[in-house]
């Protein structure tokens, strides 16, 4: 009410009425606990981590010494193991993100079929997603076991020689990729299924009348209509791919050698096994930057896309 009275000239600023002011106060009061909690569990650890990354801080040696950007310089210019772990992480992402997208899209299309009984399909879709990552890693480690694994059993069944899945560097990498794709494609499928269900049926009918075959309907209707969901799924999947840890940890523990070691595993080893908190913090900060860059690339892409639409 007060607002409309003061709004006599165009340039004049609207004043908040008493009611609006009290609502704003209530809003601030309601948000404060959540903001404080975020500050305590997100902002404080990040700041602490950034500070630690500027120090030489090893629990195996006494002292807490400021060394500026030395930790960063060592990681970027001298530490081959860091670069190897980074390369592994990138390859994992490049292989498993599209892999999970393709498998997830297939699963989503399957689950979107008009089955009479829907729950077994939905359950099959949800199960890999609901399973803890370490479990998935252990299950696949057993699958790829040399003697008792189901994969070698299948190889022998069709007359192929058994393979050293876990101890051969290339095969181990491949095995870890398979496990990651299996685990992550169900999450992809869930997001894509939600996207599929928003596409109106009449679009397919219109396309059918227009003369499109099922494949043309998929290319001309499903894929473009699903694009926003695909982008969201890719963003989430890429961010988690950069953080890949549990599955290779449970399957190979980074081995053989460092063949399947990821950035996250190297950070974990540096901090927890080698107790080098300063250097571990610097590595974590670098990984954070990489994640942020990957995210912003996708976000930019989506923003441009919505702008065009």
């Amino acid at each position, binding site marked *: 009410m007060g607002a409309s009275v003061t709004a006599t000239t165009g340039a004049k600023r609207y004043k908040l009425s008493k009611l609006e002011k009290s609502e704003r106060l209530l809003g601030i009061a309601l948000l404060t606990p959540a903001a404080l909690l975020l500050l305590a569990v997100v902002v404080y650890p990040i700041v602490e981590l950034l500070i630690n990354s500027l120090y030489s801080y090893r629990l195996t040696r006494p002292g807490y010494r400021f060394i500026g950007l030395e930790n960063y310089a060592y990681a970027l210019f001298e530490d081959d193991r860091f670069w190897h772990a980074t390369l592994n992480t990138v390859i994992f992402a490049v292989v498993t993100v599209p892999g999970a997208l393709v498998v997830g899209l297939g699963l989503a299309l399957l689950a979107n079929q008009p089955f009479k009984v829907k729950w077994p399909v939905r359950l099959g879709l949800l199960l890999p997603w609901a399973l803890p990552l370490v479990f998935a890693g252990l299950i696949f480690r057993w699958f790829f076991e040399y003697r008792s694994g189901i994969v070698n059993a299948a190889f022998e069944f069709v007359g192929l020689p058994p393979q050293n899945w876990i101890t051969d560097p290339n095969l181990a990498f491949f095995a870890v990729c398979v496990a990651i794709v299996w685990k992550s494609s169900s999450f992809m499928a869930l997001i894509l299924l939600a996207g599929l269900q928003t596409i*109106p049926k*009449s*679009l397919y*009918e*219109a*396309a*059918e*009348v*227009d*003369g*499109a*075959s099922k494949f*043309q309907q998929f290319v*001309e*209707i499903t894929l*473009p*209509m699903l*694009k926003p969901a695909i982008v969201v799924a890719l963003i989430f999947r890429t961010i988690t791919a950069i953080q890949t840890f549990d599955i290779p940890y449970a399957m190979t523990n980074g081995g053989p050698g460092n063949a399947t070691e990821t950035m996250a595993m190297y950070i974990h080893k540096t901090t927890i096994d080698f107790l080098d908190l300063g250097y571990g913090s610097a590595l974590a900060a670098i990984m954070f930057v990489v994640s942020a860059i990957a995210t912003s690339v996708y976000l930019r892409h989506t923003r441009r896309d919505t702008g065009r*639409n």
Partner: protein
Amino acid sequence: MSDVVLTKVVKAYGATAVIHGVDLHIKSGEFCVFVGPSGCGKSTLLRMIAGLEGITDGEIRIGDKVVNDLPPRERDIAMVFQDYALYPHKTVFENMAFGLRLRKRPENEIQQRVKEAAAILRIEHLLDRKPGQLSGGQRQRVAMGRAIVRNPKAFLFDEPLSNLDALLRSEMRVEINKLHKRLKNTVIYVTHDQVEAMTLADKIVVLSAGHIIQVGPPDEIYNRPAHKFVAGFTGSPPMNFLDCTIADGGGAIELAGGVKLAVPEARRATCAAQAGKKLTFGIRPENVLANPAPAADVAAVAAQVQLTEPLGAETLGLLRVGDGELTGRFSPEAGLRAGAPLAAGFEMRKFHLFDPESGAAIRGAGW
């Protein structure tokens, strides 16, 4: 020639039949409207012609081809959907061109046909836009444009105007009418709005519960309804129905409450044949007169005005006659007042009789 012929068409879901053996011949170039209340099967019938629903039994023929087992794309039809079903990620041009592209027409032909259709529908300035940037009426035009570029054997419209507001709807009705006069294609149009049916159709097909109740041109549907259902579905307000019996050996109709209406000479024989039976008397609101001058075929009745609804150009009055109630359509000058008595009259050359059990119209020659 692109006649659409339905022969004993049945649609059943399991044991439940929803279309019960429909026979219909839609001639080439005809504007045929399926009309009926929700759930009468009109959309299902249209979707069966389109090929979006299979048929359980019978035969559908488009042109000289039996299309029972052909998918929609091989039936050479175009359809306008209730929600328009425009491809949101394609421009208006690409929406209209899609069917031609799938048929691999040369690019210059596509350009030419889309532009021609856009010109007819006055949407040339929208060709680069996406459907999300268009108003409801514009989307409707694009949906029609997408149908006409292909020059199909038949256009199928599934309640195309039901998402538009009243003003736009009457505007688009005129547009569709003009379009049909210009293109002269076979059109099958589904609506639950009897005004659309009356104004657009060459032929109206009235459906109820999966049966065709009556097929005919609009004036026949309106003036000679074959069934009480048709009479009650057409006209706004619809026909009045009152219980009656035939009295005086066919010379009079007696309404409940003892009101007697003299039957004109020409209709007496038919009425006499129904003597003693309980019937339903039907009269359209415009055939109820206020303060009529005495005339041979106007039956004077004493009525009580219960309610008036002034609509500007006319006034609807809810009247009590004997034990029954009916609505009349009067000139505002008639000076109807709620609660006041009215010397009313029925135009007895225009009344209808129905069998109360079956609902079938009882009609003599020349009625």
